[in-house]
Structures are given as structure tokens and as C-alpha cells.
């Protein structure tokens, strides 16, 4: 497989690709051990806006992943990337994010009172916070000039144990439509995020392969950002027909792969 020679590092999506909630995807634990032994560098890149990296690590260990193969240093999340961005914008921010995500963010900038002091609205996955009152307040804040809408990610939906569930994306889209704002997106498929991932691996974007279950945010987003290869896995939020959205004509068939799972892709990659 030509890809195995050209790929120098892997950017690996977590939820839906390597695990679904507290369970690993098929043979993922063994596949990760094999990957680790092969010495091919890898980084987990997650759009999670709900969990700290420590939480994620604990979850992966609970799911049975070997502690030699997973580490907080091997995890890049939209939360950890947002920290720097928020400090740069440096404005009081209305947080539509879950309470335990706040730990990874500059708390002195997070301001929840509805007193119109905030110049920035930050949106993550926060089901309890997506009330009409909060959405309306965010809309009113964003109707004033010089306000910023920041999204940890624009995930459309994800797989949960009770079925598919809305991500923050639709709520960001609602605010963009209502106000004419274009959100600053921190996580996938923002090119900055993939670039940061490649930097962590000390590689060029073109030397990396991104593997994930979200055809748009993981695979097409990565390819559009200059990541060398995109691999779609048929687990998690994958739906039949997603392959049709891979746009092979634009990227060329050599840059695009579809695999049954993370484990089956690792097997192919390492065995050749």
C-alpha cells in the first residue's frame, strides 16, 4: 500500500473511532499496542468540548487501553487549543460550555451573569445550557459590534449509547444565521487545529494521515487543511453513504481511504 510508505505520523480521532463512551471499538486496544510498537508517531485529536484531557485518559484506561499507549501528552483537544485563543482575545466571555470543561480554560474570563458585559460567546457541547433563554442572550450579545463568536467545534452530531445526539455545531449555526457572524472554530476541521497536531508530531501536514468517523470534520476537513491522507472508519457516527461525500475527485484516490475500523486500518498500515 503506497500510503504506508508516505505516512510518517497518525492523527487519530477518539470518540467514535477508538472508543464509544467507555468501550473500545473492535480490537482497538490490541491495534493501539501494535501501533505503539511500530514506533510510528501518533497523536489523538479530539473535538471534545466536554472533557479535560485527564478525564479522557481515565476513560481510555477504563475502556482497557494499555497505559503505555495512552497519555495526556498524546492528546490534543479543542479545549486545550481554546485556552490559548481565549487568552489572545482576552474578553469577558459568556460560556455555553459544560461546567467541567471550564477547568481547562482561563476562568477569570468566563462570566455567566446576564449583565451584557461579555464581548465573546464561547460554544461547546453543553446540553443543559442550550436553553432558549441562554441562546437568546447569546444572540443579543452577538448583535453588538466587536463581539466574537467562538466555537470549540462545529460537530453536527455524535454517537452515544442512546443514539445519535446533536453536537454544538447546530447551535453555532443558529447563532451565525441569526447574527451574520462567522464563528471562530477552534477544533476540527479548522486548519489551525490540524497544523497544531502536525507540529506536536514534529511533522509536516502532508506527512500525516488523519483517521476518523466523521466524514466532514475528520476526513474532508483534514484533507482540505493540507493533511496528506484521510481515512474514514465505519464506526461511531459513520452512516452508509458517507463515502460518497469524500470527494475523491478533488483529492485523488491515493489520499483517501475507507476502513472498516481503526484496528483494520492499523493492521493494513503496519503489515505492508
Amino acid at each position, binding site marked *: 500500500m503506497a500510503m504506508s510508505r508516505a505516512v510518517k505520523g497518525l492523527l487519530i480521532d477518539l470518540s467514535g473511532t477508538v472508543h464509544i463512551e467507555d468501550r473500545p471499538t473492535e480490537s482497538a486496544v490490541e491495534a493501539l499496542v501494535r501501533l505503539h510498537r511500530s514506533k510510528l508517531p501518533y497523536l489523538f485529536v479530539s473535538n471534545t468540548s466536554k472533557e479535560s484531557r485527564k478525564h479522557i485518559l481515565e476513560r481510555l484506561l477504563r475502556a482497557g487501553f494499555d497505559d503505555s499507549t495512552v497519555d495526556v501528552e498524546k492528546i490534543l483537544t479543542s479545549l486545550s487549543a481554546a485556552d490559548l485563543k481565549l487568552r489572545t482575545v482576552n474578553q469577558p466571555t459568556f460560556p455555553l460550555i459544560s461546567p467541567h470543561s471550564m477547568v481547562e480554560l482561563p476562568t477569570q474570563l468566563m462570566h455567566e451573569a446576564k449583565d451584557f458585559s461579555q464581548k465573546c460567546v464561547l460554544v461547546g457541547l453543553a446540553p443543559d445550557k*442550550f436553553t*432558549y433563554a441562554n441562546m437568546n442572550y447569546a444572540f443579543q450579545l452577538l448583535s453588538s459590534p466587536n463581539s466574537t463568536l467562538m466555537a470549540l467545534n462545529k460537530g453536527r452530531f455524535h454517537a452515544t449509547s442512546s443514539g445519535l445526539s446533536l453536537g454544538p455545531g447546530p*447551535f453555532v*449555526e*443558529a447563532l451565525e444565521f*441569526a447574527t451574520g457572524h462567522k464563528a471562530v472554530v477552534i477544533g476540527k476541521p479548522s486548519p489551525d487545529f490540524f497544523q497544531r497536531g502536525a507540529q506536536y508530531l514534529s511533522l509536516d501536514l502532508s506527512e500525516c494521515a488523519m483517521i476518523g468517523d466523521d466524514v466532514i470534520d475528520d476526513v474532508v476537513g483534514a484533507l482540505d487543511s493540507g493533511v496528506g491522507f484521510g481515512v474514514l472508519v465505519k464506526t461511531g457516527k459513520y452512516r452508509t453513504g458517507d463515502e460518497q461525500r469524500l470527494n475523491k475527485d478533488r483529492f485523488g484516490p491515493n489520499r483517501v481511504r475507507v476502513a472498516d475500523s481503526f484496528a483494520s486500518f492499523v493492521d493494513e498500515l503496519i503489515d505492508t
Partner: protein
Amino acid sequence: MTSHSTLNVSKQLGSVKAVLCDIHGVLFDDGDHDQFPIPGSVHALNRLSTSGKVPFRLVSNESACTPDTVFKKFQKLKVDVEKSQIFVTVPAAYSVIKERHLRPFVLVHKNVQHCFDDLDQSNPNCVLLGDAVDNFHYDSLNEAFRVLMSSPQTQLFALGQGKFYRKGGTEELCLDVGPFTKALEFATGKEAEIIGKPSKTYFGAALKDMRVDASEAVMIGDDIVNDVGGAQSCGMKGVLVRTGKYRPSDEDHPTVQPDLIVDNFAQFIDILFKDG
């Protein structure tokens, strides 16, 4: 073809045989319990109504009311219109869903939830969104999302596509149905069918009711996109009022140029009857 009077109005409007008029933001601003008439509007509407010269329809995207509730509010304010002259979206949506034999998941304003009670809502195969206000939250939208994802055929209907409206008696702007429709379109990749302005079907129903051609009609409203732009797309003239959700930037809109801009509905009626 019934003969109607033709008013030869300003050169911007040409000859006018029928008027379509928005309600919210043109005649009244709505509060939770009260109507706040816009100065001069009631008198002007009564002038239009009693003159008998020009048929008119009130064409609104109000999705929290029925023609009956609007009619009762108008009666209290001594507005001279008939129920049959009031076009709102709820009856139109009911008809569409019933005609197509669909089972809706209904997420609308609590005041009109009951209007859909005699439709089979079990095992829903379509979603109907209205201006649901507090009924819009993660769980209800997630449920709507799951209905839409249950099959490629499930359809999303929305009562209008307004971005926001002004809460009556205040300066407060509030999210309308449009942003939540966009949220579900984004999540599902599906396109909503809009029941209400600016849908041609919706305008067309009102025009057909008056037996006039679009080219002979004028629509007046406060929403540059859904009222004015929507009307012009159908071949009608579009007049913008400087009340309701109007903002000065509307006069420099990138794609819609109103045929006429007036301060308020009263001024429009003055112009309409100037030579009449």
C-alpha cells in the same frame, strides 16, 4: 375575471389591484398578552377596509396564533377585517401535513400546539417547527433531530424562516424559528420546506384568494428578506416600512431593493389613496 378597481399610485408601485400586508411590525408589535398598535396603523387599515376599492389580505408568518385569535385581537382594537382576510401559517401547515398523510413531530408555540391534536403524532415521520420560544432546548431539538435521521424520507417543515422579531413594547430582539431550522438543516443535511413567507406557495394562496395576478399586487412588510424580497421573487411589488424589526442597514441590503420605503403603514395608505 372579477373586475377590481385599479389605483394608479406613485410611479414606484404602478397600478395596484390588491394589497398584501404583514401584521407583526407593520400593524402591531406583539407582547406576551397585549397588542401594541403602531401609531396610525389601525386607522389606516380601517380606511383600506371600508373603502372597498382594493381587496387585501393580512399575510403573516405569525406561528403562535390562528386566524381566530388574530381576529379576536383585532375586534378588541376595533379593526375592521374579516377572519377570511387573515392568512397565518398554522392552518396552512395543518393542511399540508394532512394532505400528505404525514405524522408530525410538532415543536411549535404552546398556544398553537393544540391545533395539531387531531393529527396522528405517533411514530412521527416529519418534523414541524414553529416559533416555539421556551420549547426550544437541547432535548426537544435532539428529539426532532432523531426523527429526521430515522429515514432519508423524513421531512422538516418550518413555519417561516425569520431570524428574529422585536418583542412588543420593548427594544428586545428575540430569536425566531429561522435559526433553529438552520440548526436542524445543518445537523441533518436536509433542507426545510418553508410554510409561510417567503414561499411562493404561501403568497400564491393569498393572491389566488383575491383572484389577482402577482404583478397587480403590492406586499408591505418590515422584514426586508421575507416580506419585501419574498414578494418581489413572486413578481409582486415590495414595500418596506420603517417600523417593527426594520433596521437602517436594511436600506442598503446587498440583494433586496424595495420598490418603495415608507415610515409606517399609515403613510403607505396615504400614498395609495392620494389620487383615489
